[in-house]
């Protein structure tokens, strides 16, 4: 019994640690190190984003995206004219001939997706 009492007393004594006079300074030092680490991480993510963006843009340019857009417009126009021939009474899609509309819609969706990605990245930061 005395053994247990002594062990409990010892545990209490171990818990009883007076606050160090520089406790506040110690905490601030750790906060500064955390802030530094956080800032570094933010810079790294930003730099990776810029590099990724540059790579993506260069890949777009290199793959003749504008030419592909034009050909997509042509295909859309061809598709709409074929549809009007097959079912001329079906005027439900009268503006499909505006092939560029589809391309713009796709670009809009892509921008919204990029918006989601950016929001997620900012939340992560």
């Amino acid at each position, binding site marked *: 019994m005395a053994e247990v009492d*002594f*062990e409990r*007393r*010892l*545990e*209490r*004594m*171990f*818990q*009883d*640690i*007076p*606050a*160090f006079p520089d*406790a*506040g300074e*110690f*905490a*601030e*030092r*750790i*906060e500064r*190190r*955390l*802030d530094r*680490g*956080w800032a570094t991480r933010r810079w790294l993510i930003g730099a990776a984003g810029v590099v990724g963006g540059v790579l993506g843009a260069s890949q777009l340019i290199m793959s003749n995206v504008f030419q592909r857009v034009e050909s997509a417009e042509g295909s859309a126009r061809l598709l709409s004219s074929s549809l009007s021939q097959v079912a001329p009474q079906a005027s439900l899609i009268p503006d499909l001939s505006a092939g560029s509309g589809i391309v713009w819609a796709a670009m809009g969706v892509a921008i919204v997706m990029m918006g989601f990605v950016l929001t997620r990245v900012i939340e992560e930061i």
Partner: protein
Amino acid sequence: MPGSKTIRFASLHDVELCTHAAVGERRAFGELVRRHGSSVRGLLRRMGAQPAEADDVAQDAFLTAFERIAEYRGEGSFAGWMKRIAARLYLRKLQRDRKLHLFADESGIEEEIQGGDADAAIDLDEALKTLSPGERICVSLCFAAGLSHGEAAEALNLPLGTVKSHVKRGLDKLRTRLATPQGAASQGRRGNG
């Protein structure tokens, strides 16, 4: 307004602060450091680390804890979780410095227990100095960091029997040392304060 945020954090419970810290709120974690920094630094010093070394390890332990804060789910106290991280980091440091093997066998070491030194103001820190490094670290791990004998043996990479005998010898010495009237009076003062 940073001031109001600090005040808000100061009124929160440890577990709530951990939740804030887990989403990257560094000021919340700073409040935890303010609350428990001294006990972690004190533990490391009681384990035998020099003050500067103890502070370095304590800093690393808090940074590690921030990275792993999501692992703390409020089971047990934050201070206990923190102390276990700090104790393990300190042991790893000793291992790197190749000092850990020194604790393996100290059966030959018998220090003189000066229980009759009536003039000395005896407290736990003083009493711990009479223990051998192995006894000191085993007693600290089991009674301050809250590790079981088995966990301490695993952390120290020592046989369970060695840890048990270190703890037993350490406790015997502490009991003798702290049984003096000065020791009891000193502890009584601390307990009342």
